[in-house]
């Protein structure tokens, strides 16, 4: 059985995706989860692991939730820039 990736590794992967997509595409948690499961392979990376990784990114403030008709995960913006 393949060794599971750590929460930190998934979090870094998600962070990189969010960072690369900044200003180009707004990503939803499900977009990120699907991409991570595909990247690491379902046997190494579960949806629950991705959920945990997203939570660590949010709790640390490296990423934030935003809302534009739906909820997205983005880098923390300067207040009011998008409003």
């Amino acid at each position, binding site marked *: 059985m393949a060794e599971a990736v750590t929460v930190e590794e998934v979090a870094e992967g998600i962070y990189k995706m969010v960072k690369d997509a900044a200003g180009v595409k707004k990503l939803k948690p499900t977009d990120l989860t699907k991409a991570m499961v595909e990247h690491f392979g379902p046997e190494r990376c579960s949806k629950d692991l991705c*959920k945990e990784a997203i939570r660590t990114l949010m709790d640390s403030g490296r990423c934030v939730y935003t*809302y534009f008709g*739906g909820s997205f995960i983005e880098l923390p913006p300067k207040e009011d820039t998008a409003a």
Partner: protein
Amino acid sequence: MGDEKKIPKTPKLDELDKGPWPSFVREIKRAAEKSPMSRGLLGVLERSYNEKVGHWKHGGIVGVRGYGGGVIGRYSDLPEEFPDIAHFHTIRVNQPAGWFYTSAALRTICDLWERHGSGLTNLHGSTGDIILLGTRTEELEPIFSELTQMGFDLGGSGSDIRTPSCCVGPARCEWACYDTLGLTYDLTMHYQDEIHRPAFPYKFKFKAAGCPNDCVASIARADLSIIGTWKGPIQVDAAAVTAYTKDGTDIQADVCDRCPSKCMAWDGKALTIANEWCVRCMHCINVLPTALRPGPERGATILVGAKAPIIQGAMLSSVLVPFMKMEPPYTALKELVGKMLELWAEEGKSRERIGEFIQRVGLGNFLEAIGLEPLPEMVAHPRENPYVFYEEYLEEEPTEAKA
């Protein structure tokens, strides 16, 4: 703070301070006695009344750390003119099930809102939350921290599970067919993560109604509507029925003639009910509350998919499970909802409510994916069009090969 109470002149709004119905303008003015932000609101609102347009901007970014729901960001588009109300964010606080309060609990919320916000609220928002209306970004974390110390938490917003809500239920209603408050509290606690951290294509609302009268409008407003119902005969107190006739109730006209399934007969002395034809609409019970009661075997009908118009048009929920027992720990319901949420999270499009998702993929396919058998109770009638999909078909046996 608040030393110069410059309450703006509001001749238009003052017109709404008059008249017999309680006035929201009076409420804003009361709040304005202490809050510069509410004074600002009077100014902005008077401006809207003159110009006939709103002056609020999208503000999709603010929140408390770690949560993606519970705060609605709002900014004025006239911040220079109305600096006190440049920010006007809303906090959604998860209400106690059934909207029961003690004065002590409400006072702690008022005190908090006096320290950190405009002093204006909604009791309650459309989804059910306590709405704290209007604060600044830098107040959000202190508010959250104090709220949780007081034992309250934020409700949902954005693409998450929204704050579940319910009717008064068994707390004060003899018609409650299950414990709506108990279920609502249980679901709210079960889905804490999903309420606070948006992980779905769009919003998802639960509403728990104790009987088919549906006092929380669950069939119109909830993605998952849990509407109490019963099996078996309506319980009848014959003497109490007769008592109604003495008060002038016309049992034939007011009860039997209004019964949608015409399952009731009145011969001037006794009311008979052909219970196998009863659709459990509640009308007779509503009219004769001291005489009739729902049957003793109680549970709920589970329906799915209601929503307001955006995007594909308004929908009412439709039947998913005709009858389900509703007892803690509500395992069958949670398992069913779990499968639905997983499927919709995986395959739903952005901003597609589950009702729209079901329309797109087809109820038949949806049922198959969540492992429910199709039932005639789920449809008003079978299909009328002959464009039927079949995934399986017969093939000619290769007869020669065997010989």
